[in-house]
């Protein structure tokens, strides 16, 4: 949950990038880190395995400067996507104000996406939050690959109109930055609207 420190005039919000393994969560943070102005970003901290897979989380603090007299900070985290780290994902998700679900658009990843989104719903519910009302933005990453599913097809499974959730969704190629800031803007606005 967001923290408003009246004495220091600071606001802190936590945004978590969630999704299946190798989907591009870390790439999102790496691109943001490379592209935002120097005065906005802190160090990108990664707790990864020797093979560069996320073990615990990546962490990127962003300082948006003073807004109406309040120093506003967004803390971005990724979770480890590999199935084996479910408990770790719960730990990182703790206290999140909003989630970006990074789906892998490739055909053979559809099932993993669905499983991961279901797990997210369960974990948010375990935090005593209403998942239907929880700030969430979808990102369909790897939209440049030839074996990807079209966004409308992914919607049928991940954002079905029948559920009426109508999450905002963005197609992305995180490694080169396409759609990364659109996604970040969308989740930031959503989180701010719920402060």
């Amino acid at each position, binding site marked *: 949950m*967001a923290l408003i420190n*009246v*004495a220091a005039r600071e606001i802190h919000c936590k945004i978590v990038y969630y999704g299946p393994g190798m989907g591009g969560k870390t790439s999102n943070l790496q691109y943001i880190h490379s592209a935002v102005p120097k005065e906005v970003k802190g160090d990108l901290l990664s707790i990864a395995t020797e093979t560069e897979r996320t073990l615990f989380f990546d962490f990127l603090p962003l300082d948006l400067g003073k807004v109406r007299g309040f120093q506003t900070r967004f803390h971005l985290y990724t979770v480890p996507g590999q199935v084996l780290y479910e408990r770790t994902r719960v730990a990182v998700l703790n206290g999140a104000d909003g989630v970006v679900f990074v789906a892998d658009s490739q055909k053979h990843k559809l099932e993993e996406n669905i499983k991961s989104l279901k797990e997210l719903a369960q974990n948010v519910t375990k935090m005593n*939050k209403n998942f239907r009302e929880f700030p969430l933005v979808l990102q369909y990453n790897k939209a440049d690959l030839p074996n990807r599913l079209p966004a409308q097809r992914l919607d049928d499974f991940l954002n079905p109109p029948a559920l009426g959730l109508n999450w905002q969704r963005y197609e992305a190629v995180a490694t080169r930055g396409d759609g990364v800031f659109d996604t970040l803007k969308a989740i930031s606005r959503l989180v701010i609207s719920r402060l």
Partner: protein
Amino acid sequence: MDPQLTSVIVPSAEVAQIEECLAHLVEDTQGNHALLLDKSGQVIASQGDSSRQDVTALGALIAGTFASSREVAKLLREKDFRMLFQQGVRENIFIALIEDQWILCIIFNKGTHIGLVKVLTKKATDELSAVLERVRQQHKTRDDVLGSSFRTSMEDTIDLLFRD
């Protein structure tokens, strides 16, 4: 803590009391630094060595450690581990949970006995617990604190900074 509550607003008076309590803890233990975090890793207050530049990252990592230990506790059918101790060659960290929602952390060097840290942290935890209960009980709304035009200004800032 109301789990559906979206923001925690910590008023100035309470921040001052929290800082005073942390300063006492640092002084009495001859520690190097004390931090109060919420469980998501946000730093609410910090006292001690003012040259410390890495407080934000420290907050995120300590909260991560605690959240991870809570999951370990569950596997052992414990509710949680209330305290954690990490021992280094030069510095040690003692971490205590307050009311399931907040984390108190003290960094001290080998000149201070862990027993003293434990006793004084327990005292500080009790004091902070009362202050944090008042934080929980207060009913200021976001608009009371931030003003109603905050959201529009924030959206403008987001558009300005988050772009290629």
